[in-house]
């Protein structure tokens, strides 16, 4: 059935491997074009920056190799504190967020006051900028702890006053609110039929939540949660303002103002990127995996 314009099949000619070879050649061409255009484009931008008159100044102030080498070890060591803080805060946030989301979704009348509290919590703590919250908790709570009654006793002296703890609490309160809304969207996105089916099998509301709804909701909200996690990592730097010692951003700031050079801040930024970029790639992979399903 040779149509006009097509070659007739010669014996021994393998169409399949020809097609495969053509595909490879196309991909290679495409890859070459991508590589060349990347180098040209990015190289062009780089060249523009590097040859601009202000560049030497910027380079000395932000990208000084010697300063980088000097300050990096100290900042890297302090970064370990950031890592620990965001791991702990993230766990708290995941739990707190789920509790708040559930309080807002479940309809039992007995829980109404808690539900109201949960709504107020979310509105307030999503509305206040994190830096303000760190400030307020970091300086407000110790003030409360100090409050003395007429006879000199301090009823609230049990409140934590360690800046790391207070900073962590502020971060947890703020991100807990965001994460609660992510969970809530996830819970609401689970089809109503799932709840119906669970109830029809004779499960209680609580069992339906636990075995059917929450597992599905949590699977769906994985990517947005990871997104919030990445944001949290960066906001950990904010605890520096309430006097946390040995924290990467703070160390970078101290060094930077000591020598009037911003390179230590670039070093700290690099450390943050070292953690957030792999997480972002992981997030991409996760989302691609879900899209395929």
């Amino acid at each position, binding site marked *: 059935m040779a149509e006009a314009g097509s070659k007739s099949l010669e014996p021994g000619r393998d169409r399949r491997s020809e097609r495969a070879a053509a595909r490879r050649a196309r991909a290679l061409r495409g890859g070459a074009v991508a590589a060349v255009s990347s180098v040209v484009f990015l190289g062009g931008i780089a060249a523009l920056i590097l040859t601009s008159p202000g560049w030497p100044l910027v380079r000395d102030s932000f990208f000084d190799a010697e300063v980088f080498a000097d300050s990096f070890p100290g900042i890297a060591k302090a970064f370990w504190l950031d890592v620990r803080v965001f791991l702990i805060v993230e766990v708290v946030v995941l739990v707190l967020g789920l509790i708040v989301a559930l309080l807002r979704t479940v309809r039992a009348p007995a829980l109404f006051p808690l539900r109201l509290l949960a709504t107020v919590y979310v509105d307030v703590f999503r509305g206040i900028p994190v830096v303000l919250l760190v400030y307020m908790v970091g300086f407000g709570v110790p003030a409360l702890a100090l409050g003395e009654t007429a006879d000199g006793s301090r009823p609230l002296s049990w409140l934590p006053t360690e800046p790391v703890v207070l900073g962590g609490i502020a971060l947890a309160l703020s991100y807990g609110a965001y994460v609660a809304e992510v969970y809530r969207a996830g819970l609401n996105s689970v089809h109503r039929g*799932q709840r119906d089916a669970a109830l029809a099998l004779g*499960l209680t509301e609580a069992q339906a939540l636990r*075995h059917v709804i929450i597992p599905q909701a949590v699977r769906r909200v994985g990517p947005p949660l990871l997104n919030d996690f990445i944001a949290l990592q960066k906001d950990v730097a904010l605890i520096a303002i309430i006097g946390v010692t040995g924290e990467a951003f703070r160390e970078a700031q101290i060094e930077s103002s000591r020598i009037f050079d911003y390179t230590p801040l670039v070093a700290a930024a690099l450390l943050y990127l070292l953690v957030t970029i792999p997480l972002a790639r992981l997030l991409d992979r996760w989302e691609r995996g879900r899209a395929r399903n």
Partner: protein
Amino acid sequence: MSPAGRPVLELRGVTKAFGELEVLRGIDLEVHEHEAVALIGASGSGKSTLLRCIDLLEEIDDGDIFLDGEVITDPSVDAVSVRRRLGLVFQAYNLFPHLNVLDNVLLGLVQGHGMGRAEAERRARELLARFGLAGREGDDPDRLSGGQQQRVAIARAFATRPRALLLDEVTSALDPELVGEVLQAVRDLKVEGVTMVLATHEMSFAREVADRVCFLHEGRIVESGPAEKILSAPERPETQRFLRRLLEAGRA
């Protein structure tokens, strides 16, 4: 096992409205042990709503529903224990996507009925095999065809040995060539004597499986009687009109 004569399910004057829309306007119905009752009627006539009301997924506005002679629509009654004695199969199957086929069937047995894991598994596997799904226990629901998924749903609802099985348009979402396998499963249950109420569009299904057919029109059961009679020689004009329309659409 209900004493002879007393219906498994009884509905008296059941009324349900959604806001302004009155969907059920006084339903009276009796379903006896081993009986299969088919509910037919136009879309929106209230068939689904009726089944959901029986399973206490919706709250009725007026009337009563009795299961084995006990009223179940009273606010003081524990809805969970009532639902444990009933089974509902949905048009959209509503399988749990995060659980595999076996776990879908196990969930009701283990969590809903507190059955031991080993015994539950035995029963689940047996049922799945019976409905032609042996070997698929470890699969995720989305790997199954619609007909297979619905069979899992039936197995899941039936595993708990409900007093009555409610089937809500279980073939309506299926491609025609898959309807047969589900029909077979229901036929199978009928042979075993399971008490059933099925809402359906498929008249052939009704004809085959049902002992009685009830025609729902504008929220009321307008005509009811033996399947063969209602489907071939309906008395009421509304029923006639409905069946004629179905015939024209090629579905009778």
